[in-house]
């Protein structure tokens, strides 16, 4: 039976969600990672956030880097440690190697002096947080691993007596190896957080995992994070964690009366709509309707475009009778156009979230998701899609995403495989070959929570946009990309099969 220990929020963005509240309060957590995994940054950020965000002073015990080195290194993140020290929100206990402190060993010793210094620092500023970086450096400075392990246990007990919530960083030789060198996990294995920085398909991927918390809960598995100036480590939590996703039954226009009719009156306000089809089938057109319709209804609309240039998009819109320039000038439309490759998916997600926070749209369109698919690994992409859809739903906005099917007549797309369970509505666009002519078909494959048209209808495009017409009759296999014409007699036979008794 798990008792529920109190948690101390770290203040590190996203981490407290993964840790379901924060670190176990009053305890020691080991933060382990291979070289370059951002362990020291985690430790420093833990103290900085504590001081600035929660008014909790912290003590930094440094075994490796000198306080002045650490201070200098984090200046670029906008953290002024000197100021925090002056304000008595931060204190250093400097145990870094120094020429003066080289010593010969004669006989037995223990680390009581260190414990005294830590206790004194904690008491003098009333610290509630302690970070120690890194245990590996302590082993390096002393020659007796068994002694260090024993003394670390004493230090852990000492910290607990002081009532502080502590982290200690530890190095693991390689990702996927033991938690830390020197068997450290034997004695301080109650709470373990692992930071990884792995090379995956030629891209670096940073993740954090709460391996275990004794006596309290946490999310399982790895979660990606980024490091940025001013905000340091930011963890990207995924949809599994964002619990408050209630849906509304309020309808909004798709911007096209025919499509509104097909889906029982319009999309739901906080829904995710996927529009899928081969190149040229009309996905951008539906996106354009979506944006123009929203703007006309007084909504703020955000377009994230990764396929076409701004000029092209605006020109297309004009060709369909919709004036994007005017909408932009009136502040009802914001367009962000970028090459997909310039950011990693994790950074991209943060940029998009930033743009949403800043502009506060009512609806968001992404054209296309497929363009972003090639930027990262399959895993990264799935996490990106989950993170984005979850964020949009959480804000109660409508999101429309386009996805390109790989072949002209149909087939599956990777994007669809990832996103289909997350979407509320799916619109499919297909070319239909009829007796040597390419016609176009549209169908509402899925519309969660509403009756919707089940036919595959023919549509046309002209200077005023999309017009949806009559359903295709006598043709099957359209969605599969192999339209086959059913003969009249066959149709009769089929309808007989389904005739009610």
């Amino acid at each position: 039976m798990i008792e529920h220990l109190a948690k101390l929020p770290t203040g590190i963005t996203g981490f407290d969600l993964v840790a379901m509240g924060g670190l176990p309060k009053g305890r020691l957590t080991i933060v382990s990672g291979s070289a370059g995994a951002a362990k020291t940054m985690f430790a420093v950020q833990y103290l900085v956030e504590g001081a600035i965000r929660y008014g909790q002073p912290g003590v930094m015990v440094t075994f490796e880097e000198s306080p002045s080195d650490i201070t200098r290194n984090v200046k670029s993140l906008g953290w002024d440690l000197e100021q925090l020290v002056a304000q008595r929100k931060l204190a250093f206990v400097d145990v870094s190697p120094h020429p003066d402190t080289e010593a010969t060993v004669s006989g037995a010793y223990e680390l009581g002096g260190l414990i005294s210094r830590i206790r004194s620092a904690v008491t003098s500023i009333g610290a509630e947080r302690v970070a120690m970086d890194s245990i590996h450096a302590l082993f390096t400075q002393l020659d007796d691993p068994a002694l260090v392990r024993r003394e670390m246990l004493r230090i852990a007990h000492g910290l607990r007596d002081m009532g502080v919530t502590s982290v200690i960083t530890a190095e693991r030789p390689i990702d996927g190896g033991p938690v830390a060198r020197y068997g450290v996990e034997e004695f301080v294995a109650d709470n373990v957080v692992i930071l990884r920085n792995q090379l995956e398909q030629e891209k670096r991927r940073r993740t954090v995992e709460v391996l275990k918390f004794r006596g309290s809960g946490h999310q399982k598995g790895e979660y990606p994070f980024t490091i940025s100036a001013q905000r340091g480590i930011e963890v990207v939590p995924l949809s599994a964690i964002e619990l408050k996703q209630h849906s509304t039954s309020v309808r909004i226009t798709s911007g096209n009366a025919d499509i509104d009719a097909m889906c029982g009156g319009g999309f739901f306000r906080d829904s995710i709509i996927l529009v899928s089809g081969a190149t040229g089938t009309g996905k951008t057109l539906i996106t354009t309707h979506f944006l123009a319709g929203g703007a006309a209804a007084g909504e703020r609309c955000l377009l994230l475009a990764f396929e076409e240039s701004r000029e092209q998009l605006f020109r297309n819109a004009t060709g369909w009778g919709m004036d994007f320039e005017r909408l932009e000038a009136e502040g009802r439309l914001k367009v962000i156009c970028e090459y997909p490759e310039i950011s990693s998916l994790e950074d991209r997600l943060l940029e998009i979230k930033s743009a949403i926070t800043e502009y506060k749209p009512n609806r968001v369109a992404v054209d296309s998701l497929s363009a972003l698919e090639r930027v990262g690994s399959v895993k990264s992409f799935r996490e990106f899609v989950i993170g984005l859809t979850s964020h949009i739903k959480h804000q109660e906005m409508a999101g429309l995403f386009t996805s390109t099917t790989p072949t002209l007549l149909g087939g599956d797309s990777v994007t669809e495989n990832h996103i289909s369970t997350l979407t509320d509505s799916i619109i499919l666009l297909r070319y239909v070959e009829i007796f040597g002519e390419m016609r176009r078909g549209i169908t509402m494959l899925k519309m969660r929570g509403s009756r919707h048209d089940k036919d595959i209808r023919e549509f046309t495009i002209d200077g005023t946009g999309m017009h949806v017409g009559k359903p295709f009759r006598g043709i099957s296999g359209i969605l599969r990309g192999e339209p086959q014409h059913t003969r009249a007699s066959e149709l009769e036979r089929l309808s007989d099969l389904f005739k009610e008794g």
Partner: protein
Amino acid sequence: MTDPLHLVLFVTGDSSTAAAAIINLRRLVELLGEDRCNVEIVDTQTSPEKADAARVMATPLLVRMSPPPRRRVIGDLSQFAKVATGLGLEAELSKFRREAQDGWPGRATAPPTAGDR
């Protein structure tokens, strides 16, 4: 006449290592000549700021403050040879080396105390 040897011994509380270090330090002072030495014993628990200034980590810690060279020895000081070299006092203590073996010359080894090990 040479300057007095200024030594500071940092200990933590009254652990057995502290007690042993103090005994062994007394022996060192005896061998060097009491008028030669200036000894200070600092408890890190009661004077943590002095421990900070001296960057103390492990205790017991014996620091030779002056005259130079500045040297340090960690431990209960039970190994005579290590203390001698560690403090840069081999020359002055060399006459005792033959008796020394590894422990302190001229005394029976102290009985092992029940330690906190």
